[in-house]
């Protein structure tokens, strides 16, 4: 070091010396006023004078551990869409599934379907019903898809939008990294860690058919950081549907830093509420409009252990319990059967139904449609790097799902489903321009035995900001309970005995339990680039799906003796039938036009082809050919910001309870004003959904959407 360096440092030290002198002077003169005025900044000023060598050379707990650090998108084996906290706010969305409209290749249907009719359908690349069951959905690593139908009851998740830090959507199969059900895509919801959360926040929302209130508290006690959120949501649903929701929840998260190498994390959630269920359009006899109750909870514990700077270990266990308490009583049955009798043209049949109508043993049918599912999952994972070119993760997990669903399973037993998996993934960078990712998951489960889902990708980065990705990935989807053990029937006893039927049977589904997993092989060519403020992610993909699991007539169904089957030609069973090719293009761009103006523009063009006979109905129309999303956000200088979002989906015919719907256009506007006043800061915002009040249908013609507005107020203190 030269003399001039020494000199400048000396000047600096003398400057500090003078400041300290000055500070001491101020200290003595201000001391009396401090006591009277209670200036809160002052004690902190004094505290900060206590810098010691420990602040420079002391140990700091490892935060960005190797397992926390995700691959950079340029090295990633799959296409990823990240919806960050700012985007969530800018979208003005009030429900989690609404955010997935921002993902190219996804289709979102509000309150789709006749059963669980308050639930959104969120599907990727189509081929799905209202009960989408081919995605892995995780909240902080906890799998939340239902073992019953494979989908997610979105409104029952104990997560407030304001607690979500980001959502990462892996577009395409990724079983090697995300495990079972990561078939068409994976949605990974990550919440803010307690240490990042403001001490107290209140959020209230009021709008058309909507009222919401949340309170969140976060704090620290030594090495423990915690957060708890209380929430209430009330949603009146759509016109002409029995789809209201009232939800109360508590969610809590705590991080305990045991020492520099060990961290314990805990999560807990409790949800309760009422749901509208049943629609007169679909069923006005048995599953009539009614209200059901939901009660869910979960608990999770995670231990993160730092083995070395380049290796860490994680052990996670969680248990979840979801109960839907639903009971329905049919209308009086005698008039129904009389009505059926009168509608018959054949005199013999008319007489037969009248005879039955007069000899029913019960007036009404009472169905216990309670569903209780529990999930217990333990997972161990080891992440490490070997030199600068290899990074790997491997691990294993065991899971048990249990299901009690007397109406769906045809018995009052609690059924158990066990699943074990072993997974591994290696990222190898032999050269700065090349990254090779390979991985596989080996899965064994009670329904379909043992199978493997491998994956490989090669990324080429000729320039710093440009990367190409070539990848092939396979995955399989284990049938869910509906596809494996569905035994849904209505039994109406009569007062008759042989040779007349002692009971009437309406058997809608009777699975034979012989279904193989559905398979996907996905190939893609992707490009990721950055040209000044413009980020581009484009991919061409081709998915081959085979052994498609679907429902078809079961020909070998045997009717018990002395029982009259009311629907002899429509007893369904799940089976593997047909194959399809799903091909297309997904484009996602993010353009920072100025430092205050951003444009997000996403587009997908998807074609579904039948490659093997068997995919009846509307499989090829189950995804809109074109979807377009654009969101323009602007920050005005005076605390105001605004965003304008546009969503367009071309015509589609969704499977399951869906039917043909036309092209939809929707424009949402959000205006927000941020304010700070002493310890209070916050934001007032107004959102108008469907600004131009286009009366469009989503998912099915019974779902009409109109303009809706909301006002939100958030306070942090």
């Amino acid at each position, binding site marked *: *070091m*030269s003399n*001039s*360096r*020494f000199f*400048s*440092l*000396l000047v*600096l*030290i003398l*400057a*500090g*010396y003078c*400041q*300290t002198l000055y500070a*001491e002077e101020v200290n003595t003169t201000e001391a009396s006023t401090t006591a009277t005025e209670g200036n809160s*900044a002052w004690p*902190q*000023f004094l*505290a*900060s*004078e*206590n*810098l*010691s*060598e420990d*602040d*420079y*050379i*002391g*140990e*700091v*707990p*490892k*935060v*960005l*551990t*190797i397992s*926390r*650090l995700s691959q*950079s998108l340029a*090295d990633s084996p799959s296409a990823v869409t990240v919806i*960050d906290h700012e985007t969530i706010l800018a979208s003005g969305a009030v429900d989690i599934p609404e955010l997935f409209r921002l993902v190219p290749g996804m289709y979102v249907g509000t309150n789709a379907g006749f059963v669980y009719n308050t639930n959104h359908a969120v599907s990727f690349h189509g081929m799905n019903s209202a009960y989408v069951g081919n995605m892995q959905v995780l909240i902080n690593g906890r799998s939340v898809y239902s073992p019953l139908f494979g989908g997610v009851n979105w409104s029952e998740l104990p997560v407030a939008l304001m607690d979500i*830090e*980001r959502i990462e959507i892996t577009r395409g199969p990724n079983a090697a990294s995300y495990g079972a059900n990561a078939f068409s895509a994976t949605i990974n919801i990550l919440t803010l*860690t307690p*240490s*990042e959360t*403001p*001490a107290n926040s209140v959020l209230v929302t009021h709008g058309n058919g909507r009222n919401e209130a949340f309170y969140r508290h976060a704090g*620290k006690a030594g090495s423990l*950081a915690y957060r708890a959120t209380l929430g209430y949501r009330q949603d009146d649903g759509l016109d002409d549907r029995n789809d209201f929701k009232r939800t109360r929840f508590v969610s809590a998260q705590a*991080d305990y*830093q045991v020492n520099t190498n060990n961290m314990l994390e805990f999560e807990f959630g409790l949800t309760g509420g009422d749901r509208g269920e049943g629609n007169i359009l679909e069923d006005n006899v048995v599953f009539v409009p009614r209200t059901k109750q939901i009660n869910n909870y979960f608990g999770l514990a995670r231990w993160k252990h730092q083995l070395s*700077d380049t290796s860490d270990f994680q052990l996670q266990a969680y248990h979840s319990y979801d109960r839907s308490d639903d009971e329905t009583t049919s209308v009086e049955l005698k008039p129904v059967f009389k009505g059926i009798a009168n509608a018959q043209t054949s005199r013999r049949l008319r007489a037969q139904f009248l005879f039955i109508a007069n000899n029913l043993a019960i007036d009404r049918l009472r169905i216990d449609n309670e569903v209780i599912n529990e999930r217990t999952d333990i997972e161990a994972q080891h992440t490490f*790097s070997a030199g600068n070119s290899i*990074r790997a993760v491997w691990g294993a997990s065991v899971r048990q799902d249990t299901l009690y669903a007397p109406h769906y399973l045809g018995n009052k037993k609690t059924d158990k489903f066990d699943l074990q998996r072993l997974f591994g993934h290696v990222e190898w960078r032999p050269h700065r321009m090349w990254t090779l990712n390979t991985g596989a998951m080996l899965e064994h489960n009670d329904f379909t035995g043992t199978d493997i889902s491998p994956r490989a990708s090669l990324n080429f980065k000729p320039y710093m900001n440009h990367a190409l990705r070539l990848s092939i990935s396979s995955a399989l989807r284990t049938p869910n309970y509906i596809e494996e053990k569905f035994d849904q029937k209505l039994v109406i006893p009569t007062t008759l005995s042989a040779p007349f039927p002692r009971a009437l049977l309406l058997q809608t589904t009777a699975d034979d339990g012989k279904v193989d997993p559905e398979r996907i092989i996905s190939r893609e060519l992707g490009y990721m680039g950055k040209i000044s403020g413009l980020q581009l992610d484009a991919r061409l993909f081709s998915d081959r799906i085979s052994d498609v699991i679907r429902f078809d007539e079961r020909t070998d169904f045997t009717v018990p003796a002395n029982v009259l089957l009311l629907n002899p030609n429509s007893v369904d069973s799940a089976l593997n039938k047909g194959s399809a090719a799903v091909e297309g293009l997904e484009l996602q761009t993010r353009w920072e036009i100025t*430092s205050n103006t951003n444009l997000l523009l996403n587009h997908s063009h998807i074609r579904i082809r039948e490659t093997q006979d068997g995919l009846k109905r509307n499989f090829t129309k189950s995804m809109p050919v074109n979807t377009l999303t654009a969101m323009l956000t602007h920050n005005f200088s005076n605390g105001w910001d605004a965003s304008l979002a546009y969503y367009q989906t071309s015509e589609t015919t969704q499977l399951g309870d869906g039917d043909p719907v036309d092209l939809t256009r929707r424009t949402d506007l959000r205006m927000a004003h941020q304010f700070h006043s002493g*310890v209070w*800061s916050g934001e007032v915002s107004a959102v108008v959904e469907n600004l131009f009040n286009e009366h469009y249908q989503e998912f099915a013609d019974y779902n009409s959407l109109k303009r809706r507005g909301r006002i939100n107020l958030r306070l942090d203190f």
Partner: protein
Amino acid sequence: MISNKGKIEWFKKSLAFLALVLGFFVPLLAQAYTGITIVMSAQTLTNKEFIDTFKAELVNTKNSSLKVKIINLQETEKLEVAENSELVIALGVKALAASANLKFSTPVLGVFIPMPAFNSLLVKSKRDLGNFSAIVLDQPFSRQFLLIKNILPASKKIGVLLGPTSSQYADLLKEEGEDAGLSVMEENVYLEADLIPKLNAALATSDALMAVPDTLIYSRETAQPILLTSYRQQKPIFGYSQSYVRAGALAAVYSSSKQIAKQAAEIALISQQSSNLLPPPQAPKYFSIMVNYQVARSFNLVLKSDEEIYQKVLAADTLEAK
């Protein structure tokens, strides 16, 4: 008045006599207390490493006349034994605070001392720079900017969070930043609750964040939210210690205890030759760099080897020195 005068005269005479008597013993006493005393507040690995290297460095210079005595404050509170040392080296703030109370003619050199802590002790002890100095822990900003420029050549704007202690460096940071071709974007944090919002603001407007020590901002407790926020915004942090780099900062310039010991040994020899006058407080002369390649990889940064980066920073650092 008269009687008083008489007393003073008597006192003066007695003092002169005492001086005379003591004068005979001075050579003896000086020999008895000569050498260097190292004062530490605890026996830590860092301190041990410092002492071992320091001794080894003195042996290397073939200056065996300098003896080294160690005082651990945990074992004794009595520092008087250090009073007549040619030089007292205090390891850490606690040891320096204790040593600052020794008589002013005993030169005291602090090591492992944050610059603000040194300034504060300088004022409190009312000592002069000639007999009170330090090798501070703070790396020169220019050196840190060199590291940033070497790792992120395209970077133009560097964010800094300044708190109650570090705000005094605002102007210097700006100046040295300009010299390095970097605009320093500062955000001031005076309340703990402001930390994350201000960090977000600083990251949003810059290419990376440079950490400047301040207890309100950088601590064990805040490491998690700070590093997570940086990671989520994909804007790296340049730390000031190895442990911050291990925790998730992209890189840091730091000096090991061995490097500081080497510099301290050099100062000991200089002060011996210049009648125990200490050079002015100084920044670490020898330094290392540390890069977190896992973080670099996750941020999609392709970096040279740490040795290459170090050589470049070192070359530029020395160039400036010429």
